[in-house]
Structures are given as structure tokens and as C-alpha cells.
């Protein structure tokens, strides 16, 4: 039993922190706040310049052969610092899927530009009537000559307005069983017939609704075989991790501690009790996340454990951010854009953001069902 990260990993953490001090400037933060996009092209390229995009890929794929734990450190530190890392994160999930399941030509087209920070990818899974039920997608892709014609609509295609491709789940066989009639595509956002409209959210983050109106793509846009869309989604979902959420809790602790000192509340027992609970939840979340990473690194699966880490951390974030905001009283009414805001509005911002955390990447209810069935071995509930 060894809970330590090895020396190399610790050195990497130090390197990431140093990088953030240099590159996560107030200017970058201001741009992110103004755009509502948790992606910043300049910052993104600086990360790429270090070779950290795809750093866990083998050297023959252009990576640095780092372990997964290193990537976790990267995400964790970035999330804890509030760096704009969502575009990077989504891009890597898709690129990783291409690396495993793409054609040589797709890898050629995608992997190097991704590594170099020149290509941004976005997810097109969910639809207005689908929500958590991804396999209910109705966006159609129809054979058209040697390619495909795509018509439909996707929700929550974050970064679509600056991305190069959408990783799009479409129905290619409406006669086939729900999960069997799907195929995955990589649709260029430059294609005629593609458009988007911004969707603004409670935390100020911007996402998009994307429209596909007679969008033509070649067959080389297809990822995986026809009818294998669900397998590709499942593969991609396995690359979503939970480490960021423990890091969000760290951000919450950090902001609260800073505020307590600034506001002279370091001995307020009401605050201390609530903070103590969040500190403990942070440690538990960190370890649940670390366990999932370790299991994945040893090829002992880890998907259910990842779900556990995600639900535990995000529920703690929702509850804890609400309670710590309560501790600020009326000063908590002010957000990041108001002078005199408690913790510069960070607590309020985290409370707003926390509302979505228990929903995306699988709602808490769906994931608890996964845990009940696959970790506890309980009989399947009659969900569908």
C-alpha cells in the first residue's frame, strides 16, 4: 500500500504549478470571464508548447509516454487554479477515442494538430429530446453518394463556435434497435449547413446549440463502423474522469480560507464547522478519484469507481458551496463583478457552477444506478 505519488509525479506537479503562475495571467482570467468560454486559445497553445496535450500518449503517437496519473495532476492543478481547461479536456477525450478507434488517415488528420494546440474538438451527443438518454439521438445521417448527409440538432455543444470539429452521434438506421442504429462522425464546423446559436448559463459559461441542415461529409468522417456509434460513445465516456471535481472542492476550500482571513472570520465556529466538512469531503473525493485512476492504470477497469468519485465530489460541491455561501451572509449576494463581494465572488460563482456539476457527464441519479448495479451487484432497476 503506497499512497504517495512518485518523485517524478511530484516534480511534474511543481512544474504545472509554475506554469500556471506564469501563464494563467489576470489577462487570461479576464478574457475567460468576459467570453464565458472555458477555453483560451493563447493559454491552450502555451499548454501545447510544453507537450502536455496528449502527453500520456506513447512516444510513437507523438506523446511523452507519461502516466495517466500525470494527466490527472495536470487537470487537477488546472481545475484547482480555475484555468480554462474545458476545451482541452473535451478535445483530448475525442482525440483519445480517435487514437484508439480511428482510421490511420483520421489519426493523421487529428492527432498532431491536437497535440500542437491547433485543433479544438467539441462533443455533439445530447439532443433536445434526449438529455441523459444519449442513445435516443434523432439527428439523422443518411448515405448520400459516397458520403453522408446530416440533418438534426445537438444541445450543449460547448466550444462549437471556436471548434474545428463536432464529434457527432447520429442515427443511421432508424429501423434498427435503439442502440444499434447509431454511427459516430467527425463533422467539420466549416461544412455548409452547419450553424450554431449561443446558450448562456447560470455560471456565465457559454455553450451552444448546433444545427445540421443538409451537412455533407465524406465517409472518411465516420468514426468506427456504421452502426457502432454506441460502442464509440461508450469508449469515449470511459475517458471522462472525475479528478477535476475534487479539484473544484479544493478551489472552494481555498476561496473560503482566503475569505476567512480577509474578513476576520478565522474563529467563527459556524464557518469552521462547514469548512471542516468540505475539507473532509475534499480528501474523500481526492482519494476516490485517485483510486479510479490507479485502477485504470493497472487495467483493473475503474469505470464504476470513477462514477463514485464523480458523484461524491459533485454532490459535496453542491452542498458545500451552498453552505459556505450561507456563512458569508448578505455579502454573498455579490458576484465576481462587484467590489466588496465576499471572496471576490468566488463562492457565489462556485455555487452557481456546482448546479451543473451533478448533471453533466451522467446525472447523479443515473450514476448511482450504475454504482448500485455494478459495484453493489443489485438487480437492475426498471429504468428503461
Amino acid at each position, binding site marked *: 500500500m503506497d499512497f504517495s505519488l512518485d518523485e517524478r509525479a511530484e516534480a511534474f506537479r511543481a512544474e504545472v504549478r509554475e506554469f500556471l503562475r506564469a501563464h494563467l495571467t489576470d489577462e487570461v482570467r479576464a478574457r475567460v470571464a468576459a467570453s464565458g468560454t472555458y477555453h483560451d486559445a493563447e493559454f491552450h497553445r502555451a499548454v501545447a508548447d510544453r507537450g502536455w496535450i496528449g502527453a500520456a500518449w506513447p512516444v510513437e503517437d507523438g506523446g511523452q509516454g507519461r502516466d495517466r496519473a500525470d494527466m490527472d495532476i495536470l487537470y487537477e492543478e488546472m481545475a484547482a487554479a480555475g484555468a480554462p481547461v474545458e476545451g482541452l479536456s473535451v478535445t483530448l477525450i475525442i482525440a483519445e477515442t480517435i487514437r484508439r478507434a480511428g482510421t490511420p488517415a483520421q489519426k493523421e488528420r487529428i492527432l498532431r494538430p491536437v497535440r500542437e494546440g491547433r485543433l479544438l474538438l467539441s462533443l455533439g451527443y*445530447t439532443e433536445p*429530446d*434526449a*438529455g*441523459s*438518454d444519449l442513445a*435516443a439521438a434523432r439527428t439523422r445521417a443518411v448515405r448520400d453518394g459516397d458520403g453522408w448527409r446530416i440533418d438534426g440538432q445537438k*444541445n*450543449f455543444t460547448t466550444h462549437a463556435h471556436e471548434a474545428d470539429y463536432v464529434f457527432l452521434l447520429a442515427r443511421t438506421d432508424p429501423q434498427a434497435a435503439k442502440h444499434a442504429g447509431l454511427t459516430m462522425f467527425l463533422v467539420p464546423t466549416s461544412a455548409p449547413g452547419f450553424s450554431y446559436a449561443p*446558450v*448562456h*448559463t*447560470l*455560471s456565465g459559461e457559454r*455553450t451552444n446549440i448546433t444545427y445540421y441542415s443538409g451537412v455533407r461529409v465524406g465517409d472518411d468522417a465516420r468514426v468506427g463502423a456504421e452502426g457502432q456509434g454506441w460502442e464509440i460513445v461508450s469508449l469515449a465516456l470511459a475517458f471522462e474522469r472525475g479528478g477535476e471535481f475534487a479539484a473544484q472542492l479544493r478551489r472552494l476550500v481555498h476561496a473560503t480560507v482566503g475569505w476567512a482571513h480577509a474578513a476576520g472570520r478565522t474563529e467563527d465556529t*459556524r464557518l469552521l464547522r462547514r469548512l471542516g466538512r468540505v475539507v473532509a469531503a475534499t480528501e474523500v473525493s481526492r482519494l476516490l478519484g485517485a483510486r479510479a485512476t490507479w485502477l485504470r492504470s493497472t487495467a483493473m477497469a475503474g469505470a464504476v469507481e470513477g462514477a463514485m468519485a464523480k458523484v461524491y465530489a459533485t454532490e459535496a460541491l*453542491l452542498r458545500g458551496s*451552498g453552505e459556505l*455561501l*450561507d*456563512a*458569508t*451572509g*448578505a*455579502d*454573498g*449576494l*455579490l*458576484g465576481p*463583478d*462587484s467590489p466588496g463581494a465576499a471572496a471576490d465572488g468566488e463562492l*457565489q460563482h462556485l*455555487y452557481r457552477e456546482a*448546479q*451543473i456539476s*451533478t*448533471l*453533466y457527464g451522467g*446525472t447523479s*441519479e443515473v450514476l*448511482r*444506478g450504475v454504482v448500485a448495479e455494478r459495484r453493489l451487484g443489485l438487480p437492475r*432497476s426498471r*429504468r*428503461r
Partner: protein
Amino acid sequence: MDLELTADQRDVAEAFARVFARDSSAERVRAAEASGFDPALWKALAGMGAVGLTVPAGAGGSGGGFVELALVAEAAGRRLACVPLVEAAVAARLLADAGVADVAAEAAGGERVVVFAARPAVAGVARLVPAGAVADAVLALDGDDLVLAAGAPGQPVRDLGFQAAADRPLRGDGVESRVVASGAEAGELWTRSRDRWRLATAAACAGMAAEALDVAVRYAAQREQFGVPIGSFQALQQPLADAAMAADGAVLVAREAAWRHDNGLDSWPAAAAVAFAHAAESAVRCAELCLHVHGGYGYTLEYDAQLYLRRAKATRLGAGDPDLLWEQIGATAIGKGAP
């Protein structure tokens, strides 16, 4: 016991429900969101006598009770009305109680927007007063003095609950201050008004809780996932049922507190504290659940869930750290000794 509204009470509740449905629709709330104040709605309410509802008829009001005010506040909460109804109604009544007849009449009629600050001022400033950015005057406790401070509206801030919150200095340049009461009298007047603010705000919170729940239930009943309405999943039914208990309870405690007040029962301030503590918590709980039930949509600004969440959380925060109130309720129970 008879929980049915009287015919008069029903008339009040229904009349105001109609007004808010028309003049505080989702579109109107969104239009007023940036400023936190809807002047047309204010005018409509003032015209119906809502602001002076509890001010004696002789003092320019309608001579109603806090039960009626609670019913109006409940309806206002349901529609997230962008007006300082409770703050102004409590202020007008306070001014009438204190014998400040001229201002009381103007305040009761809504010609001047005068609002009560539910937290004592600090260093001569009433901080983040709801409607402080639009009010003509603020009534606040400043040390031993109860002060009516008129002057230019405060600098608006983007407050969580889109309530036109702003700081209001009680003295200094451009502020016309008038001490309404001092010493023990000021303390008594202020405490009584704070408790009235609590019970009427509790009613507003109960309305928010009930409406946020209704919005969630309507969505859950029609939204399908995995081939069935999501409202048929026990995983959502269970928390929705709990929310229904909390929301129904909020309506009951708020109305009862108002009833105790109007019937002159000594227990009304304790009931007001319980009502506010429970109703404010329930409003946040129902709003969070409402957002969650809506999935990703709830998080977007296009849906109303986030509006309920922000107003509910802000109303709760506006009274200060909720723990202090729970402690106060506990202390009251202990102070009465073994029951």
C-alpha cells in the same frame, strides 16, 4: 381550526394572483432582471393598495392585516415579482406605528418608495438593502436610532437575487436623515418590524418554493427519457415528494405566523422566526431541485429554474447567516424553559 381562506381573503389572493400573472410574467421578470425593479408593476400594486395594506385606513392605508399581506407576498414570490413589496409594506406600517404620519401616507400609497432594511446598519451604512438602488428612502436601525434616510438611490450592484440591492448611507452628503425613534423605543419598533418582515418574507419564500416545485413537477411529468416520463422514476419522485412536504409546510407556517400576529398572540415573533427559517430553506431546496430536474436546460438562462434559485438563495442570504437564526430559535425554546 379552518384552513380555508375567508371569502375576503380569497378575493385578495385571487386578485393579486391575476395581477402578478399579468404584470410579473416570465417576460416581465426577465425585462426587469437587470435593474431588479419593475416600475409598472410597482404602480399597479400601489394602485391596488398593496403597499399600505397593513397601514390603518386613517393613516393612508387599507387597514388590512398581515394575513392579507402574507397572501399577497406568497403570490409575489410565486412570480418572482421585481418590487420591494414586503420591505415597503413593513416600512409604511412602521412609519404609521411611529406616528410619522406624512411619510407614512406617502409610503403607503407608493408615491415614494420607502423600504425597511432588515439588518441593522454598520458604520452608518445600510448595506445591500433590497431596492436600495431605486428607493427614495430607507428605514434602518443605526445604533440606538431608527433612521429614515432619504436621498438619491444607491449605486446598483449585480445582486444574486435581482432585487435592486444597494448600499445606502444613513447620513452624510445628499442624505436627508430623520430620527424616527431612539433608544428602547427604536429597538422595539425595529425588532417588531424585522419580525413582520420575516413573516411576510416567509410567505414570499413559501410562494417561491411552491412554484419552483410546480415547475419541476410539470416538467417531470412531460419530459421523457428512456421511453417514459422522468417523473415516473423513483429517483426523482422521492426528492420531489420531500420537497412537496417542505413547500406545503412553508405555506402553513408562514400563514400561521401572520395569523398569530393579527390575533395578537404573544408567540407571533417566535412563529415568524420559524416561518422564515423554514420557508427560506425550503425555497432554496425546491429551486435547486427544480433546476436539477430540468437537467442541463435548468442551468441555461432560458429556463426559469435559475431565476427561482437565485431569488431564493438571495432572499435567504439577505437575512444573514441562517445558522444564527436557527440558534435564535433554539435559544427561544430554551429560554421558555422546559415546556
